[in-house]
Protein backbone atom coordinates (compact mmCIF):
# COMPACT_ATOMS: atom_id res chain seq x y z
CA UNK A 1 0.00 0.00 0.00
CA UNK A 2 2.66 2.45 1.17
CA UNK A 3 4.96 1.44 -1.66
CA UNK A 4 2.19 2.00 -4.20
CA UNK A 5 1.60 5.44 -2.75
CA UNK A 6 5.29 6.36 -2.86
CA UNK A 7 5.54 5.23 -6.48
CA UNK A 8 2.66 7.46 -7.44
CA UNK A 9 4.08 10.45 -5.57
CA UNK A 10 7.41 9.86 -7.29
CA UNK A 11 5.66 9.85 -10.66
CA UNK A 12 3.88 13.13 -9.94
CA UNK A 13 7.15 14.73 -8.85
CA UNK A 14 8.77 13.51 -12.04
CA UNK A 15 6.01 15.07 -14.16
CA UNK A 16 6.34 18.37 -12.28
CA UNK A 17 10.10 18.42 -12.75
CA UNK A 18 9.82 17.75 -16.51
CA UNK A 19 7.10 20.36 -16.72
CA UNK A 20 9.27 22.90 -14.92
CA UNK A 21 12.25 22.15 -17.17
CA UNK A 22 10.10 22.62 -20.28
CA UNK A 23 8.88 25.90 -18.83
CA UNK A 24 12.44 27.12 -18.15
CA UNK A 25 13.51 26.17 -21.68
CA UNK A 26 10.90 28.71 -22.75
CA UNK A 27 9.80 26.84 -25.91
CA UNK A 28 6.24 28.16 -25.80
CA UNK A 29 5.03 31.58 -24.65
CA UNK A 30 4.11 31.79 -20.99
CA UNK A 31 0.40 32.43 -21.60
CA UNK A 32 0.17 29.13 -23.50
CA UNK A 33 2.43 27.12 -21.21
CA UNK A 34 2.30 28.24 -17.55
CA UNK A 35 4.68 26.89 -14.92
CA UNK A 36 3.60 24.39 -12.24
CA UNK A 37 3.78 27.17 -9.67
CA UNK A 38 1.43 29.41 -11.66
CA UNK A 39 -1.11 26.61 -11.88
CA UNK A 40 -0.71 25.89 -8.19
CA UNK A 41 -1.39 29.57 -7.45
CA UNK A 42 -4.47 29.60 -9.64
CA UNK A 43 -5.72 26.50 -7.85
CA UNK A 44 -5.22 27.90 -4.39
CA UNK A 45 -6.71 31.28 -5.38
CA UNK A 46 -9.69 29.53 -6.91
CA UNK A 47 -10.32 27.62 -3.69
CA UNK A 48 -9.69 30.67 -1.51
CA UNK A 49 -12.12 32.97 -3.28
CA UNK A 50 -14.68 30.18 -3.43
CA UNK A 51 -15.04 29.97 -7.24
CA UNK A 52 -14.00 26.35 -7.42
CA UNK A 53 -16.05 25.26 -4.44
CA UNK A 54 -19.08 26.94 -5.94
CA UNK A 55 -18.40 25.42 -9.35
CA UNK A 56 -17.94 21.93 -7.92
CA UNK A 57 -21.15 22.38 -5.95
CA UNK A 58 -23.06 23.45 -9.05
CA UNK A 59 -21.65 20.59 -11.10
CA UNK A 60 -22.43 18.01 -8.43
CA UNK A 61 -26.00 19.21 -8.08
CA UNK A 62 -26.60 18.55 -11.79
CA UNK A 63 -24.61 15.34 -11.68
CA UNK A 64 -26.46 13.84 -8.74
CA UNK A 65 -29.84 14.70 -10.15
CA UNK A 66 -29.04 13.33 -13.61
CA UNK A 67 -27.27 10.30 -12.18
CA UNK A 68 -30.11 9.42 -9.85
CA UNK A 69 -32.62 9.60 -12.68
CA UNK A 70 -30.45 7.44 -14.93
CA UNK A 71 -29.87 4.82 -12.22
CA UNK A 72 -33.55 4.50 -11.38
CA UNK A 73 -34.80 4.63 -14.94
CA UNK A 74 -31.99 2.36 -16.17
CA UNK A 75 -32.64 -0.26 -13.50
CA UNK A 76 -36.38 -0.29 -14.13
CA UNK A 77 -35.87 -0.64 -17.86
CA UNK A 78 -33.27 -3.38 -17.24
CA UNK A 79 -35.73 -5.32 -15.08
CA UNK A 80 -38.39 -4.99 -17.75
CA UNK A 81 -36.04 -6.26 -20.44
CA UNK A 82 -34.80 -9.16 -18.32
CA UNK A 83 -38.28 -10.31 -17.43
CA UNK A 84 -39.88 -10.12 -20.85
CA UNK A 85 -38.43 -11.94 -23.83
CA UNK A 86 -40.46 -10.00 -26.38
CA UNK A 87 -39.47 -6.62 -24.99
CA UNK A 88 -35.87 -7.75 -24.91
CA UNK A 89 -35.92 -8.80 -28.54
CA UNK A 90 -37.71 -5.60 -29.45
CA UNK A 91 -35.47 -3.04 -27.76
CA UNK A 92 -32.30 -4.90 -26.67
CA UNK A 93 -30.21 -4.01 -29.75
CA UNK A 94 -31.30 -0.37 -29.58
CA UNK A 95 -30.04 -0.09 -26.02
CA UNK A 96 -26.64 -1.31 -27.18
CA UNK A 97 -26.70 1.21 -30.02
CA UNK A 98 -27.66 4.03 -27.67
CA UNK A 99 -24.87 3.05 -25.26
CA UNK A 100 -22.33 3.41 -28.07
CA UNK A 101 -23.31 7.05 -28.75
CA UNK A 102 -20.91 9.49 -27.03
CA UNK A 103 -23.01 11.73 -24.81
CA UNK A 104 -21.76 14.95 -26.39
CA UNK A 105 -23.64 13.92 -29.51
CA UNK A 106 -26.89 14.48 -27.63
CA UNK A 107 -25.98 18.06 -26.84
CA UNK A 108 -27.24 19.79 -30.00
CA UNK A 109 -30.52 17.96 -29.60
CA UNK A 110 -30.82 18.86 -25.94
CA UNK A 111 -29.98 22.49 -26.65
CA UNK A 112 -32.64 22.73 -29.35
CA UNK A 113 -35.29 21.14 -27.18
CA UNK A 114 -34.52 22.69 -23.84
CA UNK A 115 -32.40 25.73 -24.85
CA UNK A 116 -29.32 26.75 -22.92
CA UNK A 117 -30.37 25.74 -19.42
CA UNK A 118 -30.16 23.29 -16.60
CA UNK A 119 -32.61 20.91 -18.23
CA UNK A 120 -30.44 20.56 -21.31
CA UNK A 121 -27.35 19.65 -19.29
CA UNK A 122 -29.16 17.30 -16.94
CA UNK A 123 -30.83 15.50 -19.81
CA UNK A 124 -27.41 14.93 -21.38
CA UNK A 125 -26.21 13.50 -18.05
CA UNK A 126 -29.23 11.20 -17.94
CA UNK A 127 -28.62 10.03 -21.50
CA UNK A 128 -24.98 9.43 -20.62
CA UNK A 129 -25.66 7.21 -17.61
CA UNK A 130 -28.87 5.35 -18.41
CA UNK A 131 -27.98 2.83 -21.11
CA UNK A 132 -25.10 1.28 -19.27
CA UNK A 133 -27.36 0.83 -16.25
CA UNK A 134 -30.00 -0.88 -18.40
CA UNK A 135 -27.41 -3.30 -19.75
CA UNK A 136 -25.88 -4.10 -16.37
CA UNK A 137 -29.14 -4.56 -14.50
CA UNK A 138 -30.70 -6.78 -17.15
CA UNK A 139 -27.52 -8.85 -17.36
CA UNK A 140 -27.50 -9.20 -13.58
CA UNK A 141 -31.08 -10.40 -13.47
CA UNK A 142 -30.71 -12.80 -16.38
CA UNK A 143 -27.62 -14.35 -14.81
CA UNK A 144 -29.18 -15.29 -11.49
CA UNK A 145 -28.37 -18.97 -10.97
CA UNK A 146 -31.49 -21.03 -11.73
CA UNK A 147 -30.65 -23.36 -8.84
CA UNK A 148 -31.09 -20.50 -6.35
CA UNK A 149 -34.53 -19.84 -7.78
CA UNK A 150 -35.45 -23.52 -7.58
CA UNK A 151 -34.14 -23.77 -4.02
CA UNK A 152 -36.35 -20.85 -3.02
CA UNK A 153 -39.34 -22.33 -4.86
CA UNK A 154 -39.15 -25.62 -3.00
CA UNK A 155 -39.40 -23.63 0.23
CA UNK A 156 -42.72 -22.25 -0.98
CA UNK A 157 -41.75 -18.76 -2.15
CA UNK A 158 -44.25 -16.68 -4.13
CA UNK A 159 -43.51 -14.61 -7.24
CA UNK A 160 -43.21 -11.25 -5.50
CA UNK A 161 -40.95 -12.60 -2.75
CA UNK A 162 -38.90 -14.39 -5.39
CA UNK A 163 -38.11 -11.07 -7.02
CA UNK A 164 -37.33 -9.11 -3.86
CA UNK A 165 -35.62 -11.83 -1.82
CA UNK A 166 -33.75 -13.81 -4.45
CA UNK A 167 -33.52 -12.25 -7.91
CA UNK A 168 -32.76 -8.71 -6.80
CA UNK A 169 -30.16 -9.54 -4.12
CA UNK A 170 -28.55 -12.12 -6.41
CA UNK A 171 -28.03 -9.44 -9.06
CA UNK A 172 -26.64 -6.79 -6.73
CA UNK A 173 -23.01 -7.33 -7.81
CA UNK A 174 -24.01 -6.47 -11.39
CA UNK A 175 -26.10 -3.54 -10.21
CA UNK A 176 -23.18 -2.09 -8.24
CA UNK A 177 -20.86 -2.42 -11.22
CA UNK A 178 -23.51 -0.74 -13.33
CA UNK A 179 -23.84 2.11 -10.84
CA UNK A 180 -20.08 2.60 -10.80
CA UNK A 181 -19.76 2.71 -14.58
CA UNK A 182 -22.82 4.92 -14.94
CA UNK A 183 -21.29 7.39 -12.51
CA UNK A 184 -18.23 7.65 -14.74
CA UNK A 185 -20.39 8.01 -17.85
CA UNK A 186 -22.56 10.65 -16.19
CA UNK A 187 -19.52 12.60 -15.06
CA UNK A 188 -18.16 12.72 -18.60
CA UNK A 189 -21.54 13.63 -20.01
CA UNK A 190 -21.84 16.42 -17.46
CA UNK A 191 -18.51 17.95 -18.47
CA UNK A 192 -19.46 17.76 -22.12
CA UNK A 193 -22.78 19.41 -21.33
CA UNK A 194 -21.29 22.16 -19.23
CA UNK A 195 -18.75 23.13 -21.87
CA UNK A 196 -21.51 24.40 -24.08
CA UNK A 197 -24.36 25.01 -21.72
CA UNK A 198 -24.58 28.06 -19.49
CA UNK A 199 -24.24 28.39 -15.74
CA UNK A 200 -21.52 28.12 -13.17
CA UNK A 201 -20.19 24.54 -13.20
CA UNK A 202 -16.64 23.30 -13.61
CA UNK A 203 -17.05 22.84 -17.35
CA UNK A 204 -18.21 26.40 -17.71
CA UNK A 205 -15.22 27.73 -15.79
CA UNK A 206 -13.07 25.72 -18.15
CA UNK A 207 -14.65 27.43 -21.16
CA UNK A 208 -14.40 30.77 -19.44
CA UNK A 209 -10.66 30.16 -18.96
CA UNK A 210 -10.37 29.50 -22.66
CA UNK A 211 -12.26 32.66 -23.56
CA UNK A 212 -10.02 34.73 -21.27
CA UNK A 213 -6.90 33.02 -22.64
CA UNK A 214 -6.12 31.93 -19.07
CA UNK A 215 -4.23 28.69 -19.61
CA UNK A 216 -3.40 28.38 -15.94
CA UNK A 217 -7.11 28.27 -15.15
CA UNK A 218 -7.78 25.78 -17.92
CA UNK A 219 -5.13 23.40 -16.58
CA UNK A 220 -6.36 23.85 -13.02
CA UNK A 221 -9.89 22.88 -13.97
CA UNK A 222 -8.69 19.89 -15.98
CA UNK A 223 -6.74 18.72 -12.92
CA UNK A 224 -9.83 19.18 -10.77
CA UNK A 225 -12.06 17.24 -13.14
CA UNK A 226 -9.61 14.37 -13.27
CA UNK A 227 -9.08 14.29 -9.52
CA UNK A 228 -12.76 14.39 -8.67
CA UNK A 229 -13.48 11.60 -11.14
CA UNK A 230 -10.71 9.48 -9.70
CA UNK A 231 -11.47 10.17 -6.06
CA UNK A 232 -15.19 9.43 -6.28
CA UNK A 233 -14.56 6.25 -8.22
CA UNK A 234 -11.76 5.00 -6.04
CA UNK A 235 -12.92 6.04 -2.60
CA UNK A 236 -16.66 5.67 -2.92
CA UNK A 237 -17.61 3.28 -5.69
CA UNK A 238 -14.61 0.99 -5.68
CA UNK A 239 -14.78 0.57 -1.89
CA UNK A 240 -18.47 -0.17 -2.07
CA UNK A 241 -18.05 -2.60 -4.93
CA UNK A 242 -15.22 -4.42 -3.14
CA UNK A 243 -17.39 -4.77 -0.05
CA UNK A 244 -20.25 -6.25 -2.03
CA UNK A 245 -18.06 -8.63 -4.03
CA UNK A 246 -16.44 -9.75 -0.80
CA UNK A 247 -19.77 -10.41 0.85
CA UNK A 248 -21.03 -12.30 -2.17
CA UNK A 249 -17.81 -14.34 -2.20
CA UNK A 250 -16.98 -13.11 -5.69
CA UNK A 251 -13.68 -11.36 -5.06
CA UNK A 252 -10.83 -13.15 -6.75
CA UNK A 253 -7.97 -13.21 -4.28
Amino acid sequence: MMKQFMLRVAFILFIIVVWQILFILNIWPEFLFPSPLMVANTLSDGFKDGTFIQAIGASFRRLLLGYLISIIFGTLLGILIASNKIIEEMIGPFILALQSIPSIVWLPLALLWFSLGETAIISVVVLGGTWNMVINSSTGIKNVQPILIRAAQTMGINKIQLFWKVILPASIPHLITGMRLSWAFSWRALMAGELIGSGDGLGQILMWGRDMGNMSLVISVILLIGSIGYLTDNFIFKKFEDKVLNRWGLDVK
Partner: protein
Amino acid sequence: MAFLKIRNLSKHFIQQDKKELEVLKDINLEINNKEFVTLIGPSGCGKSTLLNILAGLITPDTGKVLLNNRIIPGPGKDRVMVFQEAALFPWLTVIENVMFGLKINNIDKNTAYEKALKQLKAVHLANFKDSLPHQLSGGMKQRVAIARALVMDPDILLMDEPFGALDEQTRLILQKELIDIWLDTQKTIIFVTHNIREAVKLSDRIVVLGTNPGYIIDEIKIDLPHPRERENPYLVKLENRILKLLQNQMNTVGVYDEAVYA
Protein backbone atom coordinates in the same frame (compact mmCIF):
# COMPACT_ATOMS: atom_id res chain seq x y z
CA MET B 1 -51.86 -47.00 2.76
CA ALA B 2 -49.33 -45.27 0.59
CA PHE B 3 -48.63 -41.71 1.45
CA LEU B 4 -47.11 -40.56 -1.84
CA LYS B 5 -48.38 -42.15 -5.03
CA ILE B 6 -46.80 -41.77 -8.43
CA ARG B 7 -49.13 -42.90 -11.16
CA ASN B 8 -48.26 -43.55 -14.82
CA LEU B 9 -45.77 -40.74 -14.91
CA SER B 10 -44.10 -39.88 -18.23
CA LYS B 11 -41.92 -37.00 -19.23
CA HIS B 12 -40.03 -35.99 -22.36
CA PHE B 13 -37.74 -33.09 -23.14
CA ILE B 14 -37.03 -31.38 -26.43
CA GLN B 15 -33.30 -31.54 -27.01
CA GLN B 16 -31.12 -28.82 -28.48
CA ASP B 17 -31.39 -30.48 -31.90
CA LYS B 18 -35.22 -30.36 -31.62
CA LYS B 19 -35.41 -34.12 -31.16
CA GLU B 20 -37.67 -35.52 -28.50
CA LEU B 21 -36.00 -37.31 -25.63
CA GLU B 22 -38.20 -39.63 -23.63
CA VAL B 23 -36.81 -39.40 -20.10
CA LEU B 24 -39.37 -41.16 -17.93
CA LYS B 25 -41.85 -43.72 -19.14
CA ASP B 26 -44.85 -44.92 -17.21
CA ILE B 27 -43.40 -44.71 -13.72
CA ASN B 28 -45.55 -46.15 -10.94
CA LEU B 29 -44.31 -45.95 -7.40
CA GLU B 30 -45.81 -45.78 -3.95
CA ILE B 31 -43.95 -44.42 -0.99
CA ASN B 32 -45.01 -44.82 2.62
CA ASN B 33 -44.96 -42.26 5.34
CA LYS B 34 -41.61 -42.15 7.17
CA GLU B 35 -40.00 -44.35 4.57
CA PHE B 36 -36.43 -43.80 3.37
CA VAL B 37 -36.48 -44.57 -0.35
CA THR B 38 -33.43 -44.32 -2.59
CA LEU B 39 -33.48 -43.96 -6.36
CA ILE B 40 -30.44 -45.40 -8.07
CA GLY B 41 -29.72 -45.73 -11.76
CA PRO B 42 -27.35 -44.84 -14.57
CA SER B 43 -26.57 -41.22 -15.28
CA GLY B 44 -29.22 -39.59 -17.41
CA CYS B 45 -31.97 -42.07 -16.56
CA GLY B 46 -34.16 -39.31 -15.17
CA LYS B 47 -33.61 -39.45 -11.40
CA SER B 48 -33.30 -35.68 -11.04
CA THR B 49 -36.22 -35.19 -13.38
CA LEU B 50 -38.37 -37.50 -11.25
CA LEU B 51 -37.32 -35.70 -8.07
CA ASN B 52 -38.04 -32.32 -9.66
CA ILE B 53 -41.50 -33.54 -10.63
CA LEU B 54 -42.13 -34.66 -7.05
CA ALA B 55 -40.96 -31.23 -5.86
CA GLY B 56 -43.39 -29.63 -8.30
CA LEU B 57 -40.61 -27.78 -10.12
CA ILE B 58 -41.33 -29.64 -13.37
CA THR B 59 -44.74 -30.76 -14.63
CA PRO B 60 -45.03 -34.26 -16.10
CA ASP B 61 -46.49 -34.92 -19.57
CA THR B 62 -48.87 -37.56 -18.34
CA GLY B 63 -49.62 -39.19 -15.02
CA LYS B 64 -49.93 -37.65 -11.63
CA VAL B 65 -48.38 -37.36 -8.21
CA LEU B 66 -50.69 -37.73 -5.23
CA LEU B 67 -49.73 -36.72 -1.73
CA ASN B 68 -52.29 -37.92 0.83
CA ASN B 69 -54.57 -38.60 -2.13
CA ARG B 70 -54.35 -35.03 -3.36
CA ILE B 71 -52.62 -33.99 -6.55
CA ILE B 72 -49.59 -31.84 -5.75
CA PRO B 73 -50.25 -28.33 -7.01
CA GLY B 74 -46.67 -27.16 -7.70
CA PRO B 75 -43.72 -26.46 -5.45
CA GLY B 76 -44.61 -26.40 -1.77
CA LYS B 77 -42.96 -26.31 1.60
CA ASP B 78 -44.33 -29.77 2.43
CA ARG B 79 -41.74 -31.17 -0.05
CA VAL B 80 -38.39 -29.46 0.32
CA MET B 81 -35.50 -30.33 -1.94
CA VAL B 82 -31.77 -30.51 -1.20
CA PHE B 83 -29.60 -30.21 -4.30
CA GLN B 84 -26.23 -31.66 -5.18
CA GLU B 85 -24.71 -28.17 -5.14
CA ALA B 86 -25.76 -26.72 -1.80
CA ALA B 87 -27.48 -23.76 -3.56
CA LEU B 88 -27.09 -21.49 -0.55
CA PHE B 89 -27.82 -17.79 -0.97
CA PRO B 90 -24.34 -16.26 -1.06
CA TRP B 91 -25.39 -12.88 0.34
CA LEU B 92 -26.92 -14.37 3.50
CA THR B 93 -25.06 -15.69 6.51
CA VAL B 94 -25.42 -19.33 7.47
CA ILE B 95 -28.21 -18.68 9.95
CA GLU B 96 -29.98 -16.27 7.60
CA ASN B 97 -29.93 -18.99 4.97
CA VAL B 98 -31.57 -21.41 7.38
CA MET B 99 -34.12 -18.76 8.40
CA PHE B 100 -34.96 -17.92 4.78
CA GLY B 101 -37.73 -20.47 4.27
CA LEU B 102 -39.34 -19.64 7.60
CA LYS B 103 -39.34 -15.91 6.94
CA ILE B 104 -40.92 -16.17 3.50
CA ASN B 105 -43.63 -18.20 5.18
CA ASN B 106 -44.30 -15.32 7.58
CA ILE B 107 -42.83 -16.82 10.71
CA ASP B 108 -41.70 -14.01 12.98
CA LYS B 109 -38.03 -13.25 13.19
CA ASN B 110 -37.34 -14.40 16.75
CA THR B 111 -39.08 -17.73 16.33
CA ALA B 112 -37.32 -18.24 13.02
CA TYR B 113 -33.96 -17.46 14.62
CA GLU B 114 -34.53 -19.90 17.48
CA LYS B 115 -35.61 -22.69 15.15
CA ALA B 116 -32.73 -22.07 12.78
CA LEU B 117 -30.21 -22.10 15.61
CA LYS B 118 -31.61 -25.36 16.93
CA GLN B 119 -31.39 -26.90 13.48
CA LEU B 120 -27.83 -25.68 13.04
CA LYS B 121 -26.91 -27.32 16.33
CA ALA B 122 -28.37 -30.57 15.00
CA VAL B 123 -25.96 -30.45 12.06
CA HIS B 124 -23.09 -29.28 14.29
CA LEU B 125 -22.71 -25.87 12.73
CA ALA B 126 -23.95 -23.51 15.42
CA ASN B 127 -20.46 -22.02 15.73
CA PHE B 128 -20.55 -20.98 12.11
CA LYS B 129 -23.95 -19.32 12.20
CA ASP B 130 -22.57 -15.91 11.23
CA SER B 131 -20.21 -17.15 8.52
CA LEU B 132 -20.92 -16.58 4.86
CA PRO B 133 -21.40 -19.59 2.55
CA HIS B 134 -18.18 -18.97 0.64
CA GLN B 135 -16.26 -19.29 3.89
CA LEU B 136 -17.46 -22.89 4.39
CA SER B 137 -16.14 -26.20 3.08
CA GLY B 138 -18.26 -28.29 0.72
CA GLY B 139 -19.40 -30.61 3.51
CA MET B 140 -20.35 -27.69 5.73
CA LYS B 141 -22.33 -26.06 2.93
CA GLN B 142 -24.21 -29.29 2.39
CA ARG B 143 -25.01 -29.44 6.11
CA VAL B 144 -26.41 -25.92 5.95
CA ALA B 145 -28.52 -26.92 2.96
CA ILE B 146 -29.87 -29.88 4.90
CA ALA B 147 -30.58 -27.70 7.92
CA ARG B 148 -32.32 -25.17 5.67
CA ALA B 149 -34.59 -27.93 4.37
CA LEU B 150 -35.21 -29.62 7.73
CA VAL B 151 -36.11 -26.42 9.53
CA MET B 152 -39.16 -26.16 7.27
CA ASP B 153 -40.37 -29.37 8.89
CA PRO B 154 -41.51 -30.78 5.52
CA ASP B 155 -43.46 -33.99 5.20
CA ILE B 156 -41.04 -35.14 2.54
CA LEU B 157 -37.37 -34.42 2.11
CA LEU B 158 -36.19 -34.74 -1.47
CA MET B 159 -32.43 -35.17 -1.75
CA ASP B 160 -30.70 -35.16 -5.13
CA GLU B 161 -27.21 -36.61 -4.67
CA PRO B 162 -26.66 -34.40 -1.64
CA PHE B 163 -23.31 -36.00 -0.84
CA GLY B 164 -22.21 -36.53 -4.42
CA ALA B 165 -19.56 -33.82 -4.42
CA LEU B 166 -18.02 -34.75 -1.06
CA ASP B 167 -14.98 -36.78 -0.11
CA GLU B 168 -15.47 -40.25 1.39
CA GLN B 169 -14.80 -39.21 5.01
CA THR B 170 -17.23 -36.31 4.96
CA ARG B 171 -19.74 -38.46 3.14
CA LEU B 172 -19.63 -41.10 5.90
CA ILE B 173 -20.08 -38.51 8.62
CA LEU B 174 -23.01 -36.86 6.87
CA GLN B 175 -24.63 -40.24 6.17
CA LYS B 176 -24.57 -40.96 9.88
CA GLU B 177 -25.94 -37.51 10.70
CA LEU B 178 -28.71 -37.93 8.16
CA ILE B 179 -29.74 -41.30 9.59
CA ASP B 180 -29.74 -39.84 13.12
CA ILE B 181 -31.91 -36.97 11.98
CA TRP B 182 -34.20 -39.31 10.09
CA LEU B 183 -34.64 -41.65 13.10
CA ASP B 184 -35.22 -38.59 15.23
CA THR B 185 -37.70 -36.70 13.05
CA GLN B 186 -39.35 -39.61 11.21
CA LYS B 187 -39.45 -37.79 7.89
CA THR B 188 -40.15 -39.39 4.57
CA ILE B 189 -36.94 -39.15 2.58
CA ILE B 190 -36.55 -39.69 -1.14
CA PHE B 191 -32.87 -39.86 -1.86
CA VAL B 192 -30.93 -40.03 -5.12
CA THR B 193 -27.41 -41.43 -5.31
CA HIS B 194 -24.93 -43.06 -7.67
CA ASN B 195 -23.28 -44.81 -4.79
CA ILE B 196 -24.60 -48.35 -4.24
CA ARG B 197 -22.98 -48.68 -0.83
CA GLU B 198 -24.62 -45.45 0.28
CA ALA B 199 -27.97 -46.73 -0.95
CA VAL B 200 -27.85 -50.02 0.97
CA LYS B 201 -26.55 -48.32 4.08
CA LEU B 202 -29.32 -45.74 4.30
CA SER B 203 -32.49 -47.00 2.71
CA ASP B 204 -35.59 -48.92 3.68
CA ARG B 205 -36.13 -49.50 0.00
CA ILE B 206 -34.05 -49.07 -3.11
CA VAL B 207 -35.67 -48.35 -6.44
CA VAL B 208 -33.37 -49.37 -9.29
CA LEU B 209 -34.00 -47.43 -12.47
CA GLY B 210 -33.13 -48.35 -16.02
CA THR B 211 -32.57 -45.89 -18.77
CA ASN B 212 -33.65 -44.80 -22.23
CA PRO B 213 -36.34 -44.06 -21.23
CA GLY B 214 -36.20 -44.24 -17.43
CA TYR B 215 -38.28 -47.05 -15.96
CA ILE B 216 -38.26 -49.08 -12.75
CA ILE B 217 -36.23 -52.29 -13.07
CA ASP B 218 -36.58 -53.53 -9.54
CA GLU B 219 -37.38 -52.56 -5.98
CA ILE B 220 -35.36 -53.94 -3.10
CA LYS B 221 -36.55 -53.78 0.49
CA ILE B 222 -33.99 -53.71 3.29
CA ASP B 223 -35.28 -54.59 6.73
CA LEU B 224 -32.22 -53.92 8.86
CA PRO B 225 -31.96 -51.66 11.88
CA HIS B 226 -29.53 -48.73 12.05
CA PRO B 227 -26.63 -48.31 12.42
CA ARG B 228 -25.73 -50.75 9.68
CA GLU B 229 -22.29 -52.27 9.49
CA ARG B 230 -20.80 -51.85 6.05
CA GLU B 231 -19.33 -55.40 6.22
CA ASN B 232 -22.71 -56.97 6.95
CA PRO B 233 -22.77 -59.94 4.51
CA TYR B 234 -26.39 -59.37 3.66
CA LEU B 235 -25.67 -55.80 2.61
CA VAL B 236 -22.63 -56.88 0.62
CA LYS B 237 -24.82 -59.38 -1.20
CA LEU B 238 -27.38 -56.69 -1.92
CA GLU B 239 -24.67 -54.40 -3.20
CA ASN B 240 -23.58 -57.07 -5.65
CA ARG B 241 -27.13 -57.70 -6.76
CA ILE B 242 -27.71 -54.02 -7.49
CA LEU B 243 -24.36 -53.76 -9.21
CA LYS B 244 -25.38 -56.63 -11.51
CA LEU B 245 -28.70 -54.99 -12.32
CA LEU B 246 -26.95 -51.75 -13.19
CA GLN B 247 -24.25 -53.52 -15.17
CA ASN B 248 -26.87 -55.35 -17.22
CA GLN B 249 -28.45 -52.00 -17.80
CA MET B 250 -25.15 -50.56 -19.00
CA ASN B 251 -24.61 -53.54 -21.25
CA THR B 252 -28.00 -53.39 -22.87
CA VAL B 253 -27.60 -49.68 -23.37
CA GLY B 254 -24.12 -50.28 -24.78
CA VAL B 255 -25.36 -52.96 -27.18
CA TYR B 256 -28.26 -50.76 -28.15
CA ASP B 257 -25.91 -47.88 -28.88
CA GLU B 258 -23.64 -50.09 -30.96
CA ALA B 259 -26.58 -51.41 -32.93
CA VAL B 260 -27.72 -47.87 -33.61
CA TYR B 261 -24.35 -46.41 -34.49
CA ALA B 262 -22.82 -49.43 -36.31
